[in-house]
């Protein structure tokens, strides 16, 4: 089905150029037009049409592309702007793919002509790889910049490196010999603010001074971030993944991936992370990478002119983004495949792979953390795990799932409140308040005062003999004569118990703050806080199990593995599993998540525990609600995103979904050759539909094709400017041959080149399951519904989404759709204030009306009771 239809479209587009070369097949088609009337049986017409299609195709293949001999047809050259999209519109994947195939054919056919054309075709073939290389380079470099700058600014809250201002705390003490085993980060070069301002390093005075400076810096970073976002690029806020998902599924948000968004997102991301808010840089990095992909695709005409091709680059870019965010190139590719991409052919897979590779390579050579790794919290263990540990791992999975479900509910409720009430009017104030609360509560607790990445690192790290943190304060009553890497389970010391208390408080704090932080108007990612929550919970569980095994090593489950003096529980591993489970609960990713965590740790043997935990958390989470946080946000904002994962199980028919409904007013279609320019302009002005079916004539109502509003407007405007003799009363002709006109009438305007002559059609009895499948798999924008060849109505992507929403409505209330507040088209009133007459609307029988996607349907939907 797909190939056939695509193929037809392709040929039609090709044939636009050759349309005027007089040939027998055109007569054939024309003949069909002439005999076409009510008396002719449908079948005959169909056959005629088929015959003409066949001949046309061979024609095109025969190389008639360049043979346009007609002198006057200026529309042979493409009009600039035709085939582009408005802001907040959905692209037509099929049309874009056809456009690309046609372009490809054109280049291929010219290739043999000259060396220059040959070079051009080579350049064209390579541009895909070039653009992903550039994207990878740029996102790697930007990730390096963000990492280094964010580390430095985070430490700026505590103090400053006097000998070299640009070093963060760790780098400051890099070469120092004064560090001790207990206090590893103390060195004379690093001055805390208290030391600098009041000259004391210890004591309550210095504590208060540090506290004040911490809050001061946190607030000023947060304020700078939100005001930069507000003044320069409002689109830079949030995590960006829901929007990127929507964009990749074929939505247009102009400026969302632009230069200013990139710059402001990069700059403010550092500020937001440094301000200590409970957010991460991973999601925004995906957005940053996609901005790079979009900007570089403008250098290559292959990608800049084709929205579908551009989305292939964006898929690769998002892989590069995750690759640098987690240092997980393969995980990045899988993330792009599993979570964000909509259309992911094999070619894109390879390009994503390559982009991820390049980005990871660049980041590695920048070496932002000085540990020769791509992420701060890289850990490496090789301690084994035992079968009975699956039980706590699964428990962690349950916790992750519960956390995910709770977070999604709470966060969506909070965001809905922000969206719908007055409280959303004060974004700056909100950020300041959240930052202030975070800073005030975070400082006293050492685990929340830390940068979240460092916290995760500390939780992941196993307690070897080299560790001296309070988390590793075990009572050491063994006499130390064993080799290092086999430390047996030990009883916990007081340090561990106090650390557990602090961790519990940190857990509650993180859980609450993350709910309120995700969605404020600064760049904010979700991965790191979720991982931190999971890691804290995991570490607590891990220590608990460890102590249990130590004190009750005679229990039958521990008996076999955990004898006295054996090392059987690794709390760090629990932290890792917990992190994966929580992340899985929130995002509902599975494969990519396990691969990301596995790449973070480099331990192949932990794949099974990770899989068990992630799967459990997905099950538990799905029991409370099927959608992940990104889908939930997409739904909250009402983006037109047709999820490929959901199944359509209802038994409605195309006729139930199509517009217009029975009660709707009669509607707008164009006829192929007896409307004037003025008629069409009036029609465009008084309706807000995005496209109009073109029919043979008022009498026959048979479908000829489909013309998009934007194309019509642009084509008429440019014809009025460039072509002579086009006035308001000129006939507009979509047919091949202009009808015979009276001698004194002005020249007709030929618009066949903007007509889509192969619109998708289904019959009115097609089950919606099939229609939904067609829309999902082909990425259609609209589909016409016919009955016996007569146009009955239209189904757009939005109609389908509304239909799905309607069927679901009794479960959850509908979010106000995004197009509620969209820019309106000019009012349907004439200059004199009276409604414009709808002269040219074909009055079909009541059922056969046309409507295109627009606002009215929303009201209709809202008033429908179920």
């Amino acid at each position, binding site marked *: 089905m797909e190939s056939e239809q695509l193929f037809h479209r392709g040929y039609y587009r090709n044939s636009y150029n050759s349309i005027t070369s007089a040939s027998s097949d055109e007569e054939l088609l024309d003949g069909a037009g002439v005999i076409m009337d009510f008396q002719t049986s449908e079948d005959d017409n169909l056959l005629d049409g088929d015959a003409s299609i066949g001949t046309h195709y061979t024609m095109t293949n025969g190389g008639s592309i360049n043979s346009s001999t007609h002198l006057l047809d200026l529309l042979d050259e493409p009009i600039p702007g035709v085939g582009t999209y408005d802001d907040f519109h959905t692209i037509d994947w099929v049309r874009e793919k056809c456009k690309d195939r046609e372009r490809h054919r054109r280049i291929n056919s010219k290739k043999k002509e000259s060396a220059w054309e040959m070079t051009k075709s080579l350049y064209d073939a390579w541009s895909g790889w070039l653009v992903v290389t550039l994207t990878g380079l740029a996102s790697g470099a930007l990730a390096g910049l963000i990492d280094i700058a964010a580390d430095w600014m985070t430490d700026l809250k505590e103090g400053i490196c006097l000998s070299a201002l640009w070093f963060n705390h760790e780098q400051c003490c890099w070469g120092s010999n004064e560090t001790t085993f207990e206090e590893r980060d103390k060195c004379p070069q690093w001055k805390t603010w208290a030391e600098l301002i009041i000259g004391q390093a210890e004591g309550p005075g210095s504590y208060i001074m540090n506290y004040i400076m911490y809050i001061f810096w946190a607030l000023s970073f947060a304020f700078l971030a939100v005001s930069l976002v507000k003044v320069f690029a409002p689109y830079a806020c949030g995590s960006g993944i829901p929007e990127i998902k929507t964009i990749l599924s074929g939505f247009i948000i102009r400026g969302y991936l632009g230069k*200013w968004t990139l710059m402001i997102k990069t700059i403010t991301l550092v500020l937001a992370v440094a301000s200590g808010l409970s957010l991460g840089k991973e999601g925004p990095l995906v957005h940053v990478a996609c901005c790079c992909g979009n900007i570089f695709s403008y250098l290559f005409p292959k990608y800049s002119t084709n929205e579908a091709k551009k989305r292939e680059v964006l898929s690769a870019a998002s892989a590069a983004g995750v690759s640098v965010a987690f240092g997980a190139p393969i995980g990045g590719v899988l993330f792009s495949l599993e979570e964000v991409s909509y259309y992911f052919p094999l070619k894109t897979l390879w390009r994503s792979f390559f982009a991820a590779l390049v980005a990871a390579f660049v980041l590695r050579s920048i070496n932002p953390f000085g540990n020769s790794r791509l992420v701060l919290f890289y850990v490496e263990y090789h301690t084994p795990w035992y079968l009975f540990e699956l039980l706590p791992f699964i428990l962690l999975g349950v916790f992750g799932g519960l956390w995910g479900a709770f977070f999604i509910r709470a966060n969506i409720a909070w965001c809905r409140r922000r969206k719908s009430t007055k409280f959303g009017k004060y974004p700056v104030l909100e950020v300041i308040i959240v930052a202030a609360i975070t800073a005030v509560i975070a400082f006293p607790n050492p685990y929340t005062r830390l940068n979240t990445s460092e916290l995760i690192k500390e939780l992941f790290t196993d307690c070897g003999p080299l560790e001296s943190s309070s988390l590793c304060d075990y009572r050491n009553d063994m006499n130390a004569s064993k080799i290092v890497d086999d430390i047996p389970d030990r009883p916990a010391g007081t340090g561990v118990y106090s650390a557990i208390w602090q961790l519990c408080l940190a857990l509650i704090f993180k859980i609450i703050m993350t709910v309120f932080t995700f969605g404020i108007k600064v760049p904010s990612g979700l991965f790191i806080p979720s991982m931190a929550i999971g890691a804290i919970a995991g570490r607590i569980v891990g220590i608990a199990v460890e102590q249990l095994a130590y004190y009750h090593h005679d229990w039958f489950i521990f008996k076999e593995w955990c004898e006295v003096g054996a090392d059987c529980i690794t709390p760090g591993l629990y932290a890792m599993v917990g992190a994966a489970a929580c992340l899985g609960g929130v995002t509902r990713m599975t494969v990519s998540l396990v691969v990301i965590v596995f790449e973070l740790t480099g331990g192949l043997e932990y794949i099974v525990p990770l899989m068990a935990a992630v799967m459990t958390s997905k099950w538990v989470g799905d029991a409370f609600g099927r959608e992940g946080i990104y889908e939930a946000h997409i739904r909250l904002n009402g983006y037109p995103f047709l999820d490929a994962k959901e199944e359509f199980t209802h038994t409605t028919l195309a006729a139930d979904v199509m517009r217009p409904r029975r009660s709707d007013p009669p509607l707008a279609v164009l006829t192929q050759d007896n409307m004037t320019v003025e008629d069409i302009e009036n029609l465009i002005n008084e309706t807000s539909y995005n496209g109009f079916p073109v029919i043979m004539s008022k009498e026959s109502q048979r479908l000829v094709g489909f013309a998009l509003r934007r194309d019509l407007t642009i084509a008429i405007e440019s014809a009025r400017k460039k072509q002579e003799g086009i006035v308001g009363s000129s006939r507009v002709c979509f047919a091949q041959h202009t009808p015979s006109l009276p001698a004194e009438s002005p020249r007709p305007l030929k618009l066949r080149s903007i007509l889509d002559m192969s619109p998708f059609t289904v019959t009115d009895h097609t089950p919606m399951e099939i229609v939904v499948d067609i829309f999902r798999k082909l990425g259609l924008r609209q589909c016409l519904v016919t009955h016996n060849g007569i146009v009955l109505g239209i189904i757009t992507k939005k109609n389908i989404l509304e239909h799905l929403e309607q069927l679901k409505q009794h479960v959850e209330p509908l979010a106000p759709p*995004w197009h509620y507040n969209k820019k309106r088209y000019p009012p349907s009133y004439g200059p004199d204030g009276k409604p414009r007459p709808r002269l040219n609307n074909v009055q079909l029988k009541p059922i056969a009306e046309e409507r295109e996607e627009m606002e009215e349907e929303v009201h209709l939907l809202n008033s429908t009771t179920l």
Partner: protein
Amino acid sequence: MAARCGGWPRLCWLLALAALAGLGAEAKNSEDVRCKCICPPYKDHSGQIYNKNVSQKDCDCLHVVEPMPVPGPDVEAYCLRCECKYEERSSVTIKVTIIIYLSILGLLLLYMVYLTLVEPILKRRLFGHSQLIQSDEDIGDHQPFANAHDVLARSRSRANVLNKVEYAQQRWKLQVQEQRKSVFDRHVVLS
């Protein structure tokens, strides 16, 4: 998409940064390598950290731990427990990155201050009171670029290079204003 003014310099420094990454790795400062040995407590000796600037092949306990805290026979046992890691960094990359970051941030802040504070005052001087009242009415002066529409209409009539730049800038301002409306006022996207 965005004004041209921000675009090209940015791309340039992006590439410069990528180039710098390679360069920084080569021009290794002698301070940029270290061999860090962490030795855990051993018998009555407390844990110790040793830090030395040696080449990678010399990075082991015997070369780095000086003076050796334990007598001869215990050295082997002591050293077995120590963990030595060879690490390198590029201080040039860090320095340059921080400087680039801070300068961009500074420029943006200046521009922001200009747009929000200075420009409205200039306009007040230039266009007198009548306009001021108008712009106060509709969106409020605290909103930067509040009257981009007016300027856009005015600058369209003239045409030289400077005006083109201004035109591009105004167009960008309009776009940002539109974005701001859809994000902050109507909450259509990104809420």
